């Protein structure tokens, strides 16, 4: 593994280690496949935490997804600090919250209904989402319970009644109560009845919005989206709610631009598959983009919004929701991030794909592809350490990848649509014909009439021969299928054994729809010098339609000369001399005797 220096001067060091990928635009600065990070793009930030001009990587790690959630800070290739989080982090942002010197930004971690604000990596403040309005009827019921006016069972019934038709959903407490076993109820009521009813929601996404200045390090407000479809803008110092807006669905992804005091625009992707654009002065969405599939990631590039969708597409929209372009991707999108290099005037979108690639798109044109050892789950591009063009990715397996953009790297903005497809220059695979074929063709040309006549003649003969054979078979009942309408029978025979004794199994089936067949018998005709049979004649039981009747008999081969013969089987009807069915069984050579 390479070690990464946080200063840009040591670029030469990387170059020599990566000479094998000299054509690549990126230097592999660091790859730790076992960094054990489980996180998303929303939980990663680059921030100058200590005000020393060196950017650190701050990661909200989801741990196992149940426990062991951590706030991790990386500096260079090493872990600088690690502190425990109390719940799964939903989002993490770094934001300048005040004007005090030194200007160190704060870290806000959204988790459940809370935002934990850290300054200098120390807990600083905890913000709790305001409670939602509780159902007044529910409150009544609980206050009755509090005064012991109703017993837990009545409480349960009343709450169930409320749940089924209430306009406002029940609080967690009531729902939890309804799940309990009857014997647990009383204790639960005792424990909780003193508390007021609260209904809380959780934060689903978080962003930042400059308060009143456009500077890079201007004081920023927090913007949060909640499970019940509200968007709040919080004052950065007092953590009071400055503005509240509501959406028709739960927000999942958010992008904020502008300044709170002047004009701002919040682009929110929601769980119902729509994107809403909110603006100042309007508590309701101003524009709506209906996508045909769920948005997976959302990035704003200049004035346009780029959305990656589950249908393996990338769409570009204007600020007002007008569709600009669509690009088709080779695999599902996992995450996206903006790649912004203001010094070079270059902006692109990094798209992580499920086929272990990261694509760089400028508008709808693919300008570069990065192969990764694993599926990338989060991407962050920006200044890390003192290096401006750093790409940080975490993988599904928990790895951490850091790449630095080479200063010589150029992204040529070629139009991927131009030029004919490569396949056009591939030769058609036309089957070759041999000399023989050509000769035959010539022969046919010369003798077409004779060939045709000979063919027609032979065809007629063939038909005649077939017809004759058929008639003969019908006449002598030689077929394995009986042609008679009253006794439609089917028979096949199986010979088992090596010799000198063979087992002969005849499978007889009545193929009539419903009528049984009776009074049948079977007899065998064979060369008595060669074979002997215990019973050469027996009666068949009544045949029920559709069933298969196996009839076994044993044949002894008398010859030791290794010869075999045909045994003929006749199915006969009582009182008729012509057989219904005939089968010729070609007996195998008896190997038993031949060996002796």
């Amino acid at each position, binding site marked *: 593994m390479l070690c990464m220096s946080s200063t840009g001067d040591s670029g030469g060091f990387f170059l020599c280690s990566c000479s094998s990928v000299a054509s690549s635009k990126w230097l592999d600065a660091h790859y730790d496949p076992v960094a054990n990070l489980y996180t998303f793009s929303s939980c990663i930030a680059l921030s100058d935490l200590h005000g020393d001009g060196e950017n650190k990587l701050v990661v909200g790690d989801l741990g196992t997804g149940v426990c062991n959630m951590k706030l991790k800070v990386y500096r260079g290739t090493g872990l600088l600090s690690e502190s425990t989080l109390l719940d799964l982090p939903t989002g993490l942002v770094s934001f300048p919250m005040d004007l005090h010197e030194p200007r160190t930004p704060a870290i806000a971690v959204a988790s459940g209904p809370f935002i934990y604000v850290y300054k200098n990596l120390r807990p600083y403040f905890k913000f709790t989402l305001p409670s939602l309005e509780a159902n007044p009827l529910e409150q009544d019921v609980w206050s009755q319970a509090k005064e012991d006016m109703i017993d837990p069972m009545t409480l349960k019934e009343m709450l169930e009644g409320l749940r089924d038709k209430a306009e406002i959903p029940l609080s967690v407490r009531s729902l939890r109560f309804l799940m309990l076993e009857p014997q647990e109820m009383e204790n639960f009521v005792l424990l909780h009845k003193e508390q007021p009813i609260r209904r809380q929601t959780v934060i689903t996404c978080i962003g930042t919005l400059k308060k009143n200045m456009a500077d890079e390090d201007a004081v920023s407000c927090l913007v949060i989206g909640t499970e019940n479809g509200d968007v709040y803008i919080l004052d950065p110092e007092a953590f009071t709610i400055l503005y509240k807006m509501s959406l028709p669905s739960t927000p999942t992804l958010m992008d904020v631009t502008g300044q709170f005091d002047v004009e701002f625009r919040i682009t929110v992707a929601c769980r119902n598959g729509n994107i809403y654009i909110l603006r100042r002065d309007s508590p309701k969405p101003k524009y709506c983009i209906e996508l045909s599939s769920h948005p997976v990631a959302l990035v704003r590039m200049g004035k346009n919004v780029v959305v990656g969708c589950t249908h393996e597409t990338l769409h570009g929209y204007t600020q007002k929701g007008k569709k600009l372009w669509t690009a088709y991707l080779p695999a599902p999108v996992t995450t996206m991030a903006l790649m912004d290099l203001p010094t070079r005037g270059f902006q692109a979108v990094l798209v992580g794909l499920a086929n272990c690639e990261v694509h760089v798109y400028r508008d709808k044109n693919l300008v570069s592809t990065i192969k990764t050892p694993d599926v990338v789950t989060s991407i962050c591009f920006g200044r890390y350490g003192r290096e401006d063009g750093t790409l940080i990715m975490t993988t599904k397996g928990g790895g951490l990848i850091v790449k630095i953009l080479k200063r010589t790297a150029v992204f040529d903005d070629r139009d991927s649509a131009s030029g004919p*497809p490569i*396949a056009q220059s591939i030769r*058609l695979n036309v089957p070759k014909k041999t000399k023989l074929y050509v000769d035959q063709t010539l022969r046919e040309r010369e003798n077409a009439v004779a060939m045709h006549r000979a063919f027609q003649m032979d065809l007629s003969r063939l038909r005649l021969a077939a017809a004759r054979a058929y008639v003969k078979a019908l006449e002598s009942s030689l077929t394995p299928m009986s042609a008679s309408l009253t006794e439609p029978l089917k028979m096949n025979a199986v010979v088992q054994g090596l010799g000198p004794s063979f087992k002969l199994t005849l499978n007889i089936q009545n193929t009539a729809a419903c009528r049984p067949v009776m009074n049948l018998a079977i007899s065998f005709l064979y060369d008595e010098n060669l074979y002997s049979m215990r019973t050469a004649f027996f009666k068949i039981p009544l045949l029920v339609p559709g069933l298969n009747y196996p009839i076994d008999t044993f044949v002894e081969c008398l010859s030791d000369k290794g010869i075999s013969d045909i045994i003929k089987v006749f199915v006969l009807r009582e009182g008729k001399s012509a057989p219904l069915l005939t089968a010729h069984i070609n007996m195998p050579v008896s190997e038993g005797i031949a060996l002796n």
Partner: protein
Amino acid sequence: MADDAMKTDVQLPVATDLKKPRPKKAPDLPILERRNWLIHLHYIRKDYETCKAIIKEQLHETQGMCEYAVYVQALIMRLEGKIQQSLELFQSCAILNPKSSDNLKQVARSLFLLGKHKAAIEVYNEAARLNQKDWEISHNLGVCYIYTKDFKSAEEQLNLALQLHKHDLTYMMLGKIHLLQGDTEKAIDVYKSAVEFSPENTELLTTLGLLYMQLGKYQKAFEHLGNSLTYDPNNFKAILAAGSMMQTHGDYDVAMNKYRVAAYSVPESPPLWNNIGMCFFGKKKYVAAISCLKRANYLSPFDWKILYNLGLVHLTMQQYASAFHFLSAAINLRPRMSELYMLLAVTLTNLDDADNGRRSHEQAVLLDESNPLVNLNFAVFLYNQGDKKAALLQFQEMERKVNAQVENNSNTDFDPELVEMAQKLGTALQAGENLYWSKLGKDSKTSQRSSSSKPSSSQQPLGTNQALGQAMSSAAGYSKSMQITSEPEADVSSAPSPPTVTPGEPEDEDEETAEPAKLKEKKSKPRAAAE
């Protein structure tokens, strides 16, 4: 804060807490929806395994009360093909939250996938009561109505969906309804507005191009197919369609270029190999043509069009015995097509089987309605047999058909070989000089023809030549008519040749050059066109 928060994560069963004597403070209960965002995040990233694990845990914690977890689990199950189970889960979601139209929509969707369209319609209507303005409900209702064959309601619902919000999918369904009702014009209108709304959707462009082709508006068809290929140069349908159009214009090399792209992506398509074969035929590479057609025939042995082409190519190659087999196979598959009988008649004539040849001609004339070529060939046959009277009758019948076509204005561009042959025969029969050929004389080409045609050909050559001419013509006609399944291409940049400008003129030019050359090989001959 730490204290407080610590407890938020405590998920211990409440009962254990209760055992402590009189706890001072009740623990905060975990919020039911607290992991919804995580479930959603994994779901949209298609990380279904992790998603299922989280859902399982969440459902365990909330005892199945977390609506969103159940909802996503049902979605995943549906993706895994367990539609019945997903339906049950969606129904339980609808019980947990009867006010959500989303739940009802999903219930209806599962019903739809199970083929219970009537039940789905009912549930969708219920959902529509909760949410009036949802294009998805209207769209899906429309689709359900299509399956129950209630096209009127379907159209109504789809139009409603389009009013609410425009989606390519809705346009496609609406177009499909019109096509199912056989109303191509209306379908074209729908696709036109769809293309206006979404000009880069190659599927819409291709469909519109094909519809124009069916109506014979080749220029418009070429335009749309060309656009489609600009956005997606690998679009198989558009390549076939555009290629077949180029082929009819004699642009064999450009068509082949396009086919190469298609052959790379779909190497085992019978129509593609058929078209490639006919391209080679047009370029007079007969052996390659037979190879390709035989491959097409191998891939799709019961396709009469391929057999027809094989018969035609073998006829051209003078392999009459083989041609006979392919044509009779085609007739067995497609017993009511006059051109097939005509070709068979020509083959039989060449096989010295005049009796059967005549019967086959009679059958062809019986089945045919508008193709003058059928009658002309019969007339030539009869003339060669010495039956001038019957020949004259057939000749007059041909005149009638030609005049009818001219009157209907459907097609005044007759194949020059047809004209030439008819003129020769007319002279021989001493009929028809005063009739339509003078009318057709208006066509500049015809006059050229007539001048070039030999004064009066002897009777002998007529027969053999005629067969060849026929073969050629039907080749051209064939590739045209059959390609309805497949089609032409119109990459304007790659096809700078005139076809886009005026299909009529240049096309004939090309054919002329192609055909006469061939005929010379065998001796100059007449040729008829199946335009």
